[in-house]
C-alpha cells in the first residue's frame, strides 16, 4: 500500500515531552514524502469534530523542540467502539462508532495511523486495546508505547518512564529529607497497580528504607518491627497495588475506582498501630508526570517516532515499536495487548535492594 498521508494520535494520559514524539513522527514522515496530521484528543477529533473550532484534524507544524503539552491533547477516555450517545429513542447508550472513525480517516485521505499509547491504571491497557481493535478492523497502524509504570511486557523502555522515574525520585528524596528533619517516617504511595517498577527504581534512587510492591506481599508487623529497630526516621515507598499478606484485608477495589491513596492509608494505619515511630502518609499519584522531560526520553521519543514511520514504510503495520537492548523491534499488537511485565524474583533492581538492606515487606 502506498502511503501518502498519516495521522498521529495519542492515548489518554499526559507525559512531559509528548510533543517531541509527535513532531519527530511527523518529521520522519515528511522525509519520506508523506504528509502528517494530528488527531485531537485520541479519536475524538474524528468522532466529534464540531467540538474543535480548528477542526478535529490539525496540521503538525514546525520542527522545534517545544515540549510544552502534547500538541494534540491527551484527555480522552473515549473508546470509539463504545461511545456514549443518544439513540433514536433518546436513550443514552454505548454505541460502536468505530465506523465513523474509519470513514473519517478515509475521507481525510489518511492511509495509516501512528498511535502513542499506554496502559491505564484504571481500565487496563485502554488505548493499546483500542488500537488492537482498530487493527482487527483493518486499519493500518503502528503503536509507540508510553508508560508511567513501565508495566508493558513488550518493552522495558517505553516513552515517558525515564522522566516519571526521575521526577518521582526527586519527590521521594525531598520526602526523605523532610522525614529525617522531623524524625518521622514518610510513607509515600506511587503509581504501580500491577507492577512495582516505579516504586523499586525511584525508591532505590531516593534512598528508600522500605519498598512495598504488588509482587511481594508485605507484613505490617514486620514493617513496624523493621522501622522500630533500624532507623529514627525513614522513607517507605509503597506501590499503589501493594498488598498485605493473607489475613490482612487488602484495599477493596482493584479496577473501576481510582485506588490512589488507599494503600498508603492502609499501610499507615496498620504499621502505626504496631510501631513506635511517628508515621505520615503522602500520595504522589499523577504528580509523578509533572516533572520535566529528561534527555533520555527526548532522544527515545524521537527515535520512537522515526522507527514507527520506518515500520509503516517497510510494510509492518499492526505492530508496536519496542525499544530493546539492541535497538528497536516490532512486536505484533496481538502479542503486545494484555501482556503486563511484573517484577520477577530475578530482577536486578530487586537484588540491588536486598544487597542494600532495603526492607521489602517481610522479614527473611
Amino acid at each position, binding site marked *: 500500500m502506498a502511503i501518502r498521508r498519516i495521522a498521529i494520535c495519542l492515548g489518554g494520559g499526559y507525559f512531559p515531552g509528548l510533543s517531541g514524539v509527535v513532531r519527530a513522527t511527523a518529521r520522519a514522515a515528511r522525509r519520506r514524502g508523506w504528509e502528517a496530521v494530528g488527531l485531537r484528543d485520541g479519536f475524538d477529533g474524528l468522532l466529534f469534530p464540531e467540538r474543535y473550532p480548528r477542526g478535529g484534524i490539525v496540521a503538525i507544524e514546525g520542527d522545534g523542540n517545544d515540549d510544552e503539552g502534547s500538541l494534540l491533547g491527551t484527555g480522552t477516555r473515549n473508546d470509539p*467502539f463504545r461511545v456514549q450517545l443518544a439513540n433514536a429513542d*433518546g436513550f*443514552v447508550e454505548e454505541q460502536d462508532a468505530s465506523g465513523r472513525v474509519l470513514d473519517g480517516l478515509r475521507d481525510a485521505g489518511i492511509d495509516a495511523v501512528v498511535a502513542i499509547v499506554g496502559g491505564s491504571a484504571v481500565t487496563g491497557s485502554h488505548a493499546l486495546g483500542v488500537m488492537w481493535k482498530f487493527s482487527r478492523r483493518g486499519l493500518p497502524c503502528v503503536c509507540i508505547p508510553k508508560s508511567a509504570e513501565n508495566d508493558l511486557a513488550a518493552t522495558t523502555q517505553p516513552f515517558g518512564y525515564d522522566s516519571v522515574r526521575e521526577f518521582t525520585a526527586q519527590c521521594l528524596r525531598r520526602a526523605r529529607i523532610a522525614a529525617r528533619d522531623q524524625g518521622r517516617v514518610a510513607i509515600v504511595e506511587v503509581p504501580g497497580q500491577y507492577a512495582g517498577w516505579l516504586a523499586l527504581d525511584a525508591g532505590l534512587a531516593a534512598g528508600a528504607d522500605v519498598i512495598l510492591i504488588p509482587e511481594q506481599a508485605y507484613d505490617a508487623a514486620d514493617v513496624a518491627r523493621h522501622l522500630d529497630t533500624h532507623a529514627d526516621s525513614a522513607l517507605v515507598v509503597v506501590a499503589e497495588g501493594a498488598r498485605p499478606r493473607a489475613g490482612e484485608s487488602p484495599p477493596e477495589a482493584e479496577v473501576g*475506582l481510582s485506588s490512589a491513596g488507599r494503600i498508603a492509608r492502609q499501610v499507615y494505619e496498620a504499621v502505626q498501630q504496631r510501631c513506635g515511630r511517628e508515621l505520615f502518609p503522602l500520595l504522589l499519584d499523577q504528580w509523578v508526570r509533572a516533572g520535566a522531560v529528561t534527555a533520555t526520553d527526548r532522544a527515545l521519543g524521537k527515535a520512537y517516532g522515526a522507527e514507527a514511520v520506518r515500520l509503516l514504510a517497510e510494510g509492518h503495520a499492526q505492530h508496536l515499536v519496542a525499544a530493546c537492548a539492541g535497538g528497536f523491534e516490532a512486536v505484533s499488537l496481538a502479542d503486545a495487548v494484555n501482556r503486563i511485565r511484573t*517484577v520477577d524474583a530475578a530482577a536486578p533492581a530487586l537484588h540491588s535492594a536486598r544487597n542494600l538492606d532495603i526492607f521489602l515487606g517481610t522479614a527473611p
Partner: protein
Amino acid sequence: MIHPGSPEDISGFVVNLQHFSTHDGPGIRTTVFLKGCTLRCKWCCNPESIAPKPELAFNLKNCIGVAECGRCLPVCPEQALHALDSDGKVRVNWDLCSNCGKCVEVCPSKALYHYGKVMRVSEVIAEVEQDGGFYTESGGGITLSGGECLMQPEFATALLKEARGRGMNTAIETAGNVPWKFMAQVLPHVDTMLHDYKLTDTAAHRRWTGADNARILENYRAAYSEFPDINFIARIPLVPGVNDSEEHIDAVLDAILPYPNVSELELLPSHRYGDSKYGFLGRVYALEDFATPTAERLQQLRRRIAQRFAQRAT
C-alpha cells in the same frame, strides 16, 4: 392468570429481586430491578443495571488462578482475558470484552459471572408471591425499578397486570426518559409511581446524566394530568454540589404542587454502596469523590418541602 410457557408469558432482562423493601412504595414490597437504563447519571449506585442485557462481572477474590484452572483463557474469542504473572490470577481487559459469556460458562468458582438474567413473567411473579402474606398485612406489593423499568414496556406491563390480577399493589420507579407511549402503556396498571427529578436545569441535566430533561418533564406533566388516580411520589436523589440547591428544590416543588395527585417529594441522600460493583464491572466511577449530604442539610431542605406542601393544603 398467566400460564407458564404460554405466549403471554413473555420474558425480559432482570438484574435481581429484592425482598422486604420498605422504601419503594407503600408497605412491605418486593422490588424487581429490570436491566437497562436510558440515562448515565455520574453518581449512579447501580451500575450493574445500566446495560440493557446481561453483562460480565469479575470478582478477583474468587479466581482460583491459572495454575489450577485457567479454563476461561482459551474460550475467550476476543483475547480479553489474561493472567498476571505475579499472582497467577486472571484479569479482564474490559476494552476487549464483548460480553459473549463463554468464560462465565466455564468458570467453576464464579469469579466470572453475569449481572442480569432473562426471566419470564411467571418466574418473576412466582418469586414475588413468596412474600404474599406481607403484602396483605402491610398494604405492600410489587415495585418495578431498575435501571429504567419503562425501557422494557411490554415486560413491565405484563408483570404489573399479572401482579395486580393477583391482588398486589403495584408501583414503578422511573426517571422518565422514555417515549411517552412507553409510559402511557404501563401506567394503567400502576397504583404508585415514584419518579425522579434529578436536575431541573436542562444543561446541567445533560452534563450529569447524558440526556436532556425536556421530554422527562413533559412526560411527568402528561402523567399527572392523564392518570389522576395514580399516587405520584416525586424524588430527588440528592447529590451535594450537583442538585442540593434551594433553587432546584423550589423548581421541583413548582412543577409538582399544582397537581394534587403528587403526594410527596422525597429526598434520597446519595450513597456509595455501589463502589464495589464498579470494580466488578471494570467501570470507572465518574463521580467517585462525591459526598453524602449532611443530616443538617437534609433537615433544612425537608423543612422547606414540608412548608410548601403545608401551604398547598391550606
